[in-house]
């Protein structure tokens, strides 16, 4: 606490009284606006307008301090958006967790999903299976080919090819997922239905392929960045000892960039897992666990994301909606852990390459 007291004293010594007044008043107005907004009152505009006025005054009298206060406000808002998202998901998902208990996540016999009944079953197990299947298939497409593509771009391709393909891959990474979904629905689903006689026109396999194809450019792009960050001196060192370029790539470059490359893969997996539109459009939305569970051509098709996209617009509150929020929570937690994992390995890579050399 002494640290805080010290800081406050420091702040008061360094800041002009007028600026302090502006800071305090601004903070008070902001708290008022936030409070009113929270309670759903339309009056939150009043303190907000007050803040605008105050900023105008502050800008003329104490520009530096006002700017500092505003940037602090921006940072605080950014963090609070995150907290709000987490908080709201959890609050709304609570009912479902209480209602279903462990069966929310682990339930092997149907019925799994009985909307809109408030008493019925709402189990995420089939959706978890669906998410797992599509994610695994997508990863099997995106990870090996993504890494191969990155290696190709950074280590093998001649400069002329590289300058064209690298931005091209980044462009591809930007194609909206609904576009992939549309193409998947019209062409890929049709293809599997006609040629392989899938039970319904939709299948996890087709959706997984499409999602994999979709996350591929992201994996290539991020992994390529990691590979080209390996210092040239390291590669030269290996080549100068009479090893081939491929040996250098395999034994020096990829291991040195390993963290970055695996972060790229994790990012790709995260995107595949959170992917909504391509899956929503391409899956059948019938919930169940395939037998055997890895039958990726079964008639079932629903994931954590698709159930939200499909049902949330029409859910009428209550247990059904709460179950959808629970799906959101599970999704959020999985993707967040992947993201933090990826950041951790990237941080390690930074340390490793930055270390001493």
């Amino acid at each position, binding site marked *: 606490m002494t640290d805080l007291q010290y800081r406050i004293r420091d702040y008061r010594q360094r800041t002009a009284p007028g600026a302090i007044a502006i800071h305090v008043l601004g903070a008070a107005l902001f708290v008022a606006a936030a409070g009113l907004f929270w309670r759903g009152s339309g009056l939150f505009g009043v303190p907000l307008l007050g803040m605008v006025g105050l900023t105008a005054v502050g800008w003329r009298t104490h520009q530096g301090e006002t700017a500092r206060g505003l940037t602090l406000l921006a940072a605080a808002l950014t963090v609070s958006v995150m907290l709000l998202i987490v908080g709201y998901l959890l609050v709304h998902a609570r009912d479902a967790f209480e209602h279903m208990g462990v069966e929310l996540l682990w339930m092997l016999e149907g019925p799994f999903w009985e909307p809109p009944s408030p008493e019925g079953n709402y189990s995420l197990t089939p959706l978890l299976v669906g998410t797992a299947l599509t994610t695994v298939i997508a990863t099997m497409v995106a990870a090996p080919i993504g890494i191969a593509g990155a290696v190709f771009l950074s280590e093998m391709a001649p*400069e002329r090819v590289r300058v064209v393909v690298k931005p091209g891959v980044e462009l591809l990474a930007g194609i909206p997922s609904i576009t992939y979904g549309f193409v998947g629905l019209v062409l890929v689903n049709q293809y599997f239905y006609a040629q392989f006689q899938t039970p319904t026109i939709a299948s996890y396999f087709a959706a997984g392929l499409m999602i994999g194809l979709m996350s591929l450019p992201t994996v290539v792009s991020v992994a390529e960045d990691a590979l080209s960050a390996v*210092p*040239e*001196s*390291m*590669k*030269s*060192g*290996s*080549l*100068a*000892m*009479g*090893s*081939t370029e491929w*040996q250098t790539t395999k*034994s*020096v470059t990829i*291991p*040195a960039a390993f963290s970055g490359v695996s972060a790229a893969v994790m990012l790709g997996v995260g995107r595949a897992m959170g992917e909504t539109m391509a899956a929503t459009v391409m899956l059948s939305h019938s919930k169940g666990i395939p037998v055997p569970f890895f039958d990726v051509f079964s008639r079932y098709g629903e994931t954590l994301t698709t159930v939200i996209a499909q049902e949330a617009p029409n859910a009428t509150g209550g247990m059904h909606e709460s179950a959808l929020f629970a799906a959101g929570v599970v999704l959020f937690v999985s993707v967040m852990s992947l993201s933090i994992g990826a950041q951790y390995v990237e941080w390690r890579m930074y340390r*490793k*390459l930055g*270390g*001493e*050399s």
Partner: protein
Amino acid sequence: MSEANTTQTEDASQRTTDDAGGAIGGSAGRTTTGESEERIEDHWRNYEFAGEPKLSVEDLDVYYGEEQALQSVSMEIPEESVTALIGPSGCGKSTYLRCLNRMNDRIKSARVDGSVQLEGEELYQDGVDLVELRRRIGMVFQSPNPFPKSIRDNVSYGPRKHGDISTGLLPKLLGRDDTEQREELVERCLRQAALWEEVQDRLDDNALGLSGGQQQRLCIARCLAVDPDVILMDEPASALDPIATAKIEDLIEELAEEYTVVVVTHNMQQAARISDQTAVFLTGGELVEYGETDQVFEDPESQRVEDYISGKFG
């Protein structure tokens, strides 16, 4: 040196420094003519020795984009000896060294004209096996560049890549495990590079955790492990304390009994101590004097070399 002496040579040094600025600034044309005029004024000595040269370089020009880094360098390097390359910073010593094992191929803007021959075989021609070439001409770089692997793996990297040593699960399964040879090799090379004492207990640690000087010696050990014919060293002792430097100098002299060693150094006493012959490059990428070390240091032909050696510029 005396006060008067300094003032006397100031003009000359001033002029050369200007030229250096020109070369770095990119006006290669002007520099070229200026320097070659000077060369005619200067006495130019080339080293002549009996026997076949190990490496012979003829009319070597190197350009980085528009900028010329080496100007028609010719020099023959005898076998089983130490050749020192000295000269002011930026004069092209590293560039020259990189030409000898074609590491300049890695630099996109670099262009090499002229001829380099290893035992009479032209290195700049089609069909040269770069892998084989670099296996025979090893290199220690100016700044240490260990791999982000364990110390042991760093040293045994070359032999493993060449298939001379195989360790690990698969060879073990096949019953051809070379772990013992590897351990011997690692110890021998690290001892030669005067590093064994410091790292023998932590061979499994990441090499990037070593100090700069230790990394430098590790790179020397790594190079020795490949057992090349020619060893190119770019300031191998630049990051070392006097004791380690002495050890490396001993090593270089020892190596010269078996290998052909080419060493770049900024330390003239060192060059004088260890080398059999010395080549002096001066700013602009010109080889100004090449001869027996004693002669170069005691009685240089060229005034500029004398100035450089006596520390008046450069």
